[in-house]
């Protein structure tokens, strides 16, 4: 009960933040009624999905300060569990998604235990390695479709049990609910004991250790929470796209995007991943569709994307949220 009260308590926010949260929520709620085209709707779904991913990454990457670049493997685990259970045994989404999350949790403990012996660059590269190893295995494992991937069976009628709908609106509301669960969880998390411990570890590991914090165990816990978040999103991706292959759910670029959105928006803040996703997902999509129309401009959209990463990391490593806070301090 206490935890739920904490999760819904936004009292430490400024008035401007609370008002924007309300306006934002209202907008999300009525968005499908605004008569937006299917392209805009897809972008919105992607935005909510990547916010969810970013929030998950924020636990270990933002609050914990560990450069984690292997989240895509958990997207893959979540997506493959849902897809395979549906193809092999016709198990509904509502059962297979939690199973996927449990597998992701178990796997993250196994990987996390040796992984968190490492720090800094060693850790960052090692997370990439674990993710790529899993991708290579799935790429060559004929039982799970290898590089061809797997298609989910398509149902004639919209089906709530298998989460298959004709209209994107249903998917939109479903991912919105997940998004809010994630948001409230993160609101609780940042005020929880683990949240404070992680920030302490980020500031000064030696000091944290001398206060009796079990650093490695804290990091593993945060890593597993992040993995669970991402696996939920992965499960959603499977039923939403109806087709998954190792390249779409386990690629290195997906891991990078997840971390980047949280970083660009502002790591270690509740708003960061949401701002980052709100900024990057439309940019990615619209640039892609806009420049893709011109022949000979292949790659320009990603060049702009990459230049943005370079500018942000060189001039404002705290991201967009850092800029906002700076402006606010100057204002008051």
């Amino acid at each position: 009960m206490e935890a739920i009260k904490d999760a819904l308590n936004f009292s430490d926010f400024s008035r401007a933040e609370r008002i924007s949260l309300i306006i934002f929520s209202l907008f999300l709620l009525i968005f499908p009624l605004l008569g937006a085209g299917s392209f805009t709707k897809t972008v919105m779904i992607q935005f909510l999905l990547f916010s969810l991913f970013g929030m998950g990454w924020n636990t270990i990457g933002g609050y914990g300060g560990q450069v984690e670049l292997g989240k895509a493997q958990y997207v893959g685990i979540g997506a493959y569990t849902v897809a395979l259970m549906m193809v092999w045994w016709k198990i509904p989404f509502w059962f297979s998604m939690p199973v996927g999350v449990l597998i992701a949790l178990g796997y993250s403990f196994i990987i996390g235990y040796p992984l968190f012996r490492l720090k800094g660059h060693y850790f960052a590269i090692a997370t990439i390695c674990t993710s790529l190893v899993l991708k290579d295995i799935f790429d060559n494992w004929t039982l799970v479709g290898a590089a061809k991937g797997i298609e989910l069976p398509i149902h004639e009628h919209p089906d709530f049990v298998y989460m298959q709908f004709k209209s994107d609106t249903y998917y939109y509301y479903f991912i919105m609910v997940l998004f809010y669960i994630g948001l409230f969880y993160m609101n609780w998390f940042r005020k929880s004991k683990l949240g404070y411990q992680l920030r302490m570890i980020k500031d000064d590991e030696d000091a944290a250790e001398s206060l009796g914090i079990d650093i490695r165990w804290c990091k593993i816990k945060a890593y597993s929470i992040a993995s669970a978040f991402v696996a939920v999103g992965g499960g959603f991706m499977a039923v939403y796209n109806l087709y998954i292959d190792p390249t779409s759910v386990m690629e290195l670029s997906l891991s990078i995007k997840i971390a980047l959105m949280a970083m660009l928006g502002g790591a270690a803040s509740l708003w960061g991943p949401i701002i980052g996703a709100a900024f990057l997902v439309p940019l990615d999509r619209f640039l892609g569709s806009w420049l893709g129309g011109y022949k000979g401009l292949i790659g320009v959209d990603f060049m702009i994307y990459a230049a943005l990463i370079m500018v942000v990391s060189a001039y404002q490593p705290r991201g967009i949220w850092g800029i906002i806070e700076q402006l606010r301090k100057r204002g008051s």
Partner: protein
Amino acid sequence: MLIIDALLQGILMGLLFALVALGLTIIFGVMDIVNFAHGEFLMLGMYTVYWTSLFLNIDPLLALPASAIMGILLGLASYYCFIRYLLRGPAIAQLFGTFGLMLFLQYFAMFLFKTDYRMVEKGLLVGKSLSVGPFIFDWTKIAAGLLSLISFIVVFYFINMTKTGKALQATALNKEAASYMGIKTDRMNALAWAIGGGTVGVAGGLLVNFYYAYPMVGILFVMIAFACVALGGFGSIKGVFFAGLLIGILEMVFPVFGQLVGSDFLGPHFKVTIIYLAYFIIVVVRPQGLFGWRQ
């Protein structure tokens, strides 16, 4: 017999890997930055040799200086225009920064050269092979191995024997103390990037003789280079040489081993996977690498 053949081929590849990883380890040693864009320097080196030999109609081996110069200029440009500003930020920003540089160069190459796979087709050594007893070696690979070795030795002597090289080492050991001794550490950083870019440019120029150049080729080689650097001990030059050899041998011998055992899971698909796995195990079990002098 297969194993010995793979071993010899692995040594040739390993010499090249060592040259690729050399720049990475120097940059890491001097300024504690992991350069994700290193593989893209290699990719641009490959393209430089490809286009120079095509347009000037010269042998690809004679085009190597072009790729070295390109690499040096690219290294200097990245340092002075970008990396210098990254250094003020936290480590996480540095990682993302070089990652951004990597993406930028990848898509820049895609924009310029499209996604076609290109390989040098004409040349003195291209397509010819040397057979010694039961073994057959491609001349291009032999040239790549030997020239890599020579480049490596040149850089090694430069760093250990000249005054500038010693200043570079001093900067790597202790930046503050070095600057008190009157060493301009900013210049040393730039030098590290120049050497890093130059060596990897040469490696790319050698590689394009027998490997396809395409915009995304870098990521594979940067992961191999990471494994070499980790195995040798981050920042250790001697270490990276032996680590390169070991990784090269591992990459070649592993599929042969799988073939002999007859297992599908030890096949050639996984020859890169085994390198990732090797990296993971090395850093977990022995974080200081084989020759590392610090953690």
